[in-house]
C-alpha cells in the first residue's frame, strides 16, 4: 500500500490531529530556531548569546514573544490601512500551508490507526509548495508597498524582483528530481530515494536548490529585502507588535519549510542515514521522525552558518548571479540529464553513456577555461595607465614607485625601537 492510499483512509478526526501537530511543530520549531540561531551566531562571534531566561536561555524567545505582543501596535498615517493589516496575515498563514504535503514519518501507528504523519498528498505536491511560496511573497511585497514610506517600498521592490528571479532557478532545480523520480508527489519522491539520495546523483540540482532556497527565504547573504544596514528594516520597518511578530514567525517557519522540502526532495526524506537503516525497525516508523527533524536541523545550521560567515550581496551582483549563473547552469544541467535518462531508458551501451558524460565534462571545462582566459585578458587590458607621481603620500599603485625614497621600511625601524627600549 502506498503512502497516498494509506493517508486517504484517515478518518476526519485524525486529519485534525495531524493539522494540530503541524501547527505545534511549526511554532515550537520557530521558538527553538530563534534561540538556536542566536546561540550559534553568538558562538561564531565569540559571545555567549541569550543564557538568562530558563536553562541555557531556552525560554528567551518565549519571553521575547510575550514582550513583542505587549508592544504598542502602530499603523502609520500614510499607510494603506487594509493592505497594511492584510500583509502580515498573508505571510503568516501561507508559511504553514506548505507543511500539508511534507511527509514527516513513514508508516506509523497513531491512536490505533495505521497511517503516515503527512496531512495530505497530491499528485503535484511539490508544485503546490511552489504555489504557496509564491503567494507568501505577497505578504512581504504588500507590506513594503502599504507602509507608505521609502525604505519599506524599496524592500518590497527588491523582494518581488528577488522572488521572480530565484523562483525560476528553484523550479528548474526541481525538474531533475521530477525526471528521476517520475512523480511530483512528495511521498513518491521519498520512496524513489530508498537506494540513492538525490543530493548525490543530482548534485548540481541540489546545489542550485540550496542556493535558491536561501534566496527564497530572504536570509543572509540574500537578505536584501530587509537589509538592516541599508533599508533600516526593509519591508517591516513600519511594523510593530503582533504584526511584526507575524513576519518574524513567517520567516522562521519558512526556513523550516524550505529545509523540510530540501530534506524530502534531496536527502531521502524521513529515511535514516545510509548504513543506519536498522534504526527504522527499532521503534517502528516513529524513529523516522527523529531522522527527519535531524536533517532539518542540519539545514537550519547551514542557514545560521551562512549568516555568520557571508556578507550581504550587492543588489546587482545578486541579480546577475541569479539570471546569468544559476538559471543557465540549471538549464544546461537539465538538458544533459534528460539526454542521459533517455539513453539509459533506451538501453544504450555503457560505453556510449560514459563517452557522452566525459564529452560533456570536457566541453564544460573547455568553455570555462576559455571564459577565464578572456576575462583575464580583459582585466589586463583595463590596467591603469601611467600617471603623474602623486605629490601626496598615498600607497603606491601597481607599477608606480614612491617618489620619496628615504622612507624607512618597517623592518629597518625595528633595531632602533629595540635600542630605545634597551
Amino acid at each position: 500500500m502506498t503512502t497516498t492510499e494509506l493517508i486517504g483512509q484517515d478518518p476526519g478526526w485524525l486529519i485534525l490531529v495531524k493539522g494540530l501537530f503541524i501547527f505545534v511543530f511549526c511554532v515550537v520549531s520557530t521558538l527553538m530556531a530563534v534561540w538556536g540561531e542566536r546561540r550559534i551566531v553568538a558562538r561564531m562571534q565569540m559571545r555567549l548569546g541569550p543564557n538568562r531566561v530558563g536553562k541555557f536561555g531556552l525560554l528567551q524567545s518565549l519571553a521575547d514573544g510575550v514582550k513583542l505582543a505587549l508592544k504598542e501596535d502602530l499603523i502609520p498615517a500614510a499607510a494603506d490601512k487594509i493592505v497594511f493589516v492584510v500583509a502580515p496575515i498573508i505571510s503568516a498563514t501561507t508559511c504553514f500551508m506548505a507543511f500539508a504535503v511534507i511527509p514527516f514519518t513513514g508508516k506509523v501507528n497513531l491512536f490505533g490507526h495505521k497511517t503516515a504523519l503527512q496531512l495530505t498528498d497530491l499528485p503535484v505536491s511539490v508544485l503546490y509548495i511552489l504555489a504557496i511560496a509564491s503567494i507568501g511573497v505577497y505578504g512581504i511585497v504588500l507590506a513594503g508597498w502599504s507602509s507608505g514610506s521609502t525604505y519599506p517600498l524599496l524592500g518590497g521592490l527588491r523582494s518581488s524582483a528577488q522572488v521572480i528571479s530565484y523562483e525560476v532557478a528553484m523550479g528548474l532545480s526541481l525538474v531533475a528530481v521530477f525526471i528521476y523520480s517520475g512523480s511530483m508527489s512528495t511521498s513518491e519522491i521519498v520512496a524513489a530515494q530508498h537506494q540513492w539520495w538525490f543530493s548525490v546523483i543530482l548534485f548540481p540540482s541540489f546545489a542550485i536548490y540550496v542556493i535558491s532556497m536561501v534566496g527564497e527565504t530572504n536570509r543572509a547573504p540574500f537578505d536584501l529585502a530587509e537589509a538592516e544596514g541599508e533599508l533600516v528594516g526593509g519591508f517591516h520597518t513600519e511594523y510593530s507588535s503582533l504584526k511584526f511578530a507575524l513576519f518574524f514567525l513567517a520567516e522562521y517557519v519558512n526556513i523550516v519549510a524550505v529545509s523540510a522540502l530540501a530534506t524530502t526532495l534531496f536527502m531521502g526524506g524521513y529515511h535514516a542515514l545510509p548504513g543506519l537503516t536498522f534504526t527504522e525497525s527499532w521503534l517502528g516508523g516513529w524513529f523516522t521522525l527523529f531522522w527527519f527533524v535531524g536533517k532539518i536541523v542540519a539545514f537550519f545550521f547551514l542557514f545560521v552558518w551562512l549568516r555568520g560567515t557571508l556578507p550581504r550581496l550587492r543588489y546587482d551582483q545578486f541579480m546577475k548571479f541569479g539570471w546569468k549563473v544559476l538559471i543557465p547552469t540549471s538549464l544546461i544541467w537539465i538538458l544533459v540529464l534528460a539526454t542521459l535518462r533517455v539513453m539509459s531508458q533506451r538501453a544504450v551501451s555503457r560505453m556510449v553513456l560514459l563517452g557522452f558524460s566525459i564529452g560533456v565534462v570536457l566541453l564544460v571545462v573547455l568553455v570555462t577555461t576559455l571564459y577565464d582566459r578572456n576575462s583575464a585578458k580583459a582585466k589586463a587590458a583595463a590596467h591603469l595607465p601611467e600617471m603623474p607621481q602623486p605629490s601626496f603620500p598615498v600607497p603606491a599603485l601597481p607599477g608606480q614607485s614612491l617618489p620619496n625614497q628615504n622612507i624607512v621600511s618597517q623592518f629597518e625601524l625595528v633595531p632602533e625601537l629595540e635600542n630605545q627600549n634597551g
Partner: protein
Amino acid sequence: MLQSAFHFGLTIGRTGTPEAVQFWILAPLAVMAALGILLVKKAVHSALLMAWVMVTLAIFYIAEDALFLGIVQIVVYTGAVMMLFLFILMLVGVDSSESFVENLKGQRIPSIIAALGLGGLIASLVGRAAVVSPAAGLAAANAGGNVQGLAKLLFTQYVWAFEVVSALLITAALGAMVLAHSQKVRSPFAQRDLSVARFRKASLADAAGLPTSGVFARHNAVDVPALLPDGSPAPTSVSQTLRARGDIISSSGFELKSIEEQED
C-alpha cells in the same frame, strides 16, 4: 475523504453538494473582486483584486479535478505575472491612479473588434463542447493520472501548437527587451568612476573624500563646518546645496578655548 468529495461532483451536468457549497461561497467573491478591479481607484488595489480572482479560479479548477491546471495557475499567474505587475505599479508610485490619456492613437476600434472576436471564439468553443460534441468527462480524461494525461496530449497531439506558442512568447520577450534596451545602461557617475576622477585631479587633497561636517564633541549638525587643525572652518565639509543656500552656522563659537582661557 477529500478525493471522494472530488469524485462526488464529477458526473457531467450535475454538481455535488460540497462543490455547490464551494461554488456559492467563492463565485460571488470572485465576481465582486472582478468588478472591483474596474471600480477601485488605486492601481495596486486593482492588481490585488486581480490576484484574488486568479486564486479563486485556481480553486475552481482544483475542485473540478484539474489539479495541475489549478496549481500552475497560481504559480504562473499569481506568483509570476501578477508579481511583475505589482513590481511595475510600485515603481510607478504609491498613490498613482489611472490616467485617461490615450497613448496609442486610434487603438479603440481595433481593440474592440479584437475583444469581440476573442469573445466569439470562446463562446463557440464552449458551445461546441457543450452541444455539438459533448465532453468525455473528467473521469475519462484523468484515467491515467491528471498530469500524465495532460502531458501526453501536450507532447503528442498538440506538440506543434505548444511549440509555436512558446516560440511566440520568447519572441515577445526578446522584442520587449530590444525595445526597452538602451546602450547607456550604466550611469557615467558610478562609484568607481567618481573614485578614479578624484585621483586624476590636480590636487589629491580630497582624494579620500571630503571631511565630514561638525565640530568634534561640540556640535555634529550637517550645517556646521568642521574645524581645521589651525582652528579655521573647513567649508568643503558642508554639503554644496547648503553652501549654495547659505544655510551654514558659523563654527567659530564651538572652538575649544586654549587651556589658559579655560582655566580663567
